């Protein structure tokens, strides 16, 4: 990985690159500690409204915890005859993608000594409702196209910014989750 120590001191995107690099080195030596499990729980409230929360996760060989519990209300909009108490679940997917890629951009920029001033992402997920409504079996339920547009103000050339965004995709968990198949097991408790 490239580092530019002299310039890193003056560039501050609020990312602790030394810690990330240290973790990379440490976890190369101890692959077992690199095994993480992320967790969420949810409770149905009413109608299409569900409240989910995250707090604990597992990694670095032991149980870990966020500083506080985060909760998320999901619901459907009024055009679906719902109460619109929260974002739709598919919007959370877009939120996850934006958060993941942007965090990556900040980290890579810090590592490449690029000062960021503004990073704006605009996302669209296109979906044909004939899928989930069971109107046409040839239409998939999920997004059939996701686009994300980044507008970035930074001390860098347009090529450097393109490379920054490309590297962020290369290392993004959510980008991988969306673009590649994932095993999903659904069980029903007794």
């Amino acid at each position, binding site marked *: 990985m490239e580092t530019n120590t002299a310039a890193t001191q003056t560039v501050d995107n609020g990312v602790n690159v030394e810690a990330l690099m240290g973790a990379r080195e440490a976890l190369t030596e101890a692959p077992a500690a690199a095994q993480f499990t992320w967790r969420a729980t949810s409770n149905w409230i009413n109608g299409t409204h569900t409240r989910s929360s995250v707090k604990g996760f597992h990694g670095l060989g032991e149980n870990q915890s966020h500083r506080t519990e985060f909760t998320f209300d999901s619901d459907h909009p009024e055009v679906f005859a719902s109460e619109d108490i929260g974002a739709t679940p598919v919007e959370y997917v877009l939120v996850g993608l934006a958060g993941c890629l942007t965090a990556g951009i900040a980290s890579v920029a810090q590592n490449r000594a690029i000062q960021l001033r503004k990073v704006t992402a605009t996302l669209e997920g296109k979906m044909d409702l004939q899928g989930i409504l069971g109107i046409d079996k040839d239409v998939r339920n999920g997004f059939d196209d996701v686009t994300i547009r980044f507008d970035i103000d930074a001390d860098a050339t347009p090529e450097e910014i*393109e490379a920054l965004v490309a590297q962020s995709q290369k290392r993004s968990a959510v980008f991988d989750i969306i673009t*590649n198949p994932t095993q999903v097991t659904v069980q029903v408790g007794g």
Partner: protein
Amino acid sequence: MERSMSPFRNGTARIGLRMRRKARDIDVIIIGAGHAGLAMSAQLSRCQVDHVVLEAGDIGQRWRRERWDSLSLLTPNWTLDLPGQPYAGQDPDGYMHKDVLADYLEGYAQHIKAPVKRDTRVHRVCAAGARYCVTTTQGEWYCRAVVLATGAYAEPNVPKIARSLPASVCQVTARDYRRAEDLPAGKVLVVGGSATGLQFAQELNAAGREVILSVGEHVRMPRQVAERDVYWWLMRSGVFWETAAEVDDLTRARGVPSPQLVGQRGTDLNLDRLQHQGVEIVGRFAGISNGDAQFSGNLPHLCKSADLKMQRLLKRFAETVPHALSARDLEFTPTDLARPRLAARLGDEINVVLWATGFRPDYSWLDLDVFDDKGRLQHDGGVVRAPGIYALGLPLMRRRASTFIAGTAADTQALTVHLRGYLETFAQRFAVGA
């Protein structure tokens, strides 16, 4: 086991066999008589180091018998600079056909009088005190040093997913594919975005076959820049000679696939071109679900990355060779693929899967504690952890040039210096010990 089964249990016959099969002793054994093993032999002969080259079959046999008919080298002939024999043929700008290369290596072996033992397959290399015992189909050898010159491209890499394909799909590897006519009828899924995969896709498409090409991370490269071969630029700019220490993230760099090139003068090979010819391009073969091959949706990202890297490379050429290139020479059309499909039916639609997913070395016969937890040979610039063991021809072993014939002279020279030092200490220790 062998003893009780032997027909020569008693009498002169057994003694005769024993005498014939008596273990031989030599300073250095080179395993493999390809370009690397032969080049090492030339270096050792020059320094009068006693050695032998053990070859499982015949010189250059992997080129002759384990590659497809149409294959030519990706590097132009003028780069085929072997120790003691620079290229002196009539076609310096051509790309040598694999069979011609095998003959060329045969000629090189004769020219340098390489002590090659043919049809001598190595079964095992193990420690024997301070020396090594090399067991072959032609008996045992003992030696002080071993040079592993069997290459980085011994066995085809086939991903685990191959085991999940339905039996109705015919699977062929890059080692076994010879020509389009040999494949069973039906649509072919070529898996792999390297030179191999793209060459297969182009060849099958030209033969009138329906082809889907599955592409993951890949390296786009022009055949020529400003009418010179890209390898001229790679060498001139120093990229080709970059050392392992100079490269960011060496582990990653060692796994990068071969650039999308074909050994044909002035001919570019890239995804846009293949799409234009009628090949369907899809993302990485990522999974199988209900009999469908699933392709990753990250292809636009990987194409963009490949374009960015190519742009950087061209820029570097321009920076390191001043005034040689105009802004126009650096221009190229960005990859522009049709929206790729994410799935295709295995068996019904795809009848043949051609794995162009790379090659790996085979050191299964190397019975020494010299591998990492992923089974990769551990070495520092070709100097293996076990004293007296050396490797050749591995990706970015000492330099980017290490897997090329053009890089062999420098690597074998450096390892010869190390090896001679080792033999000297060995001799001193042996004298003190005795």
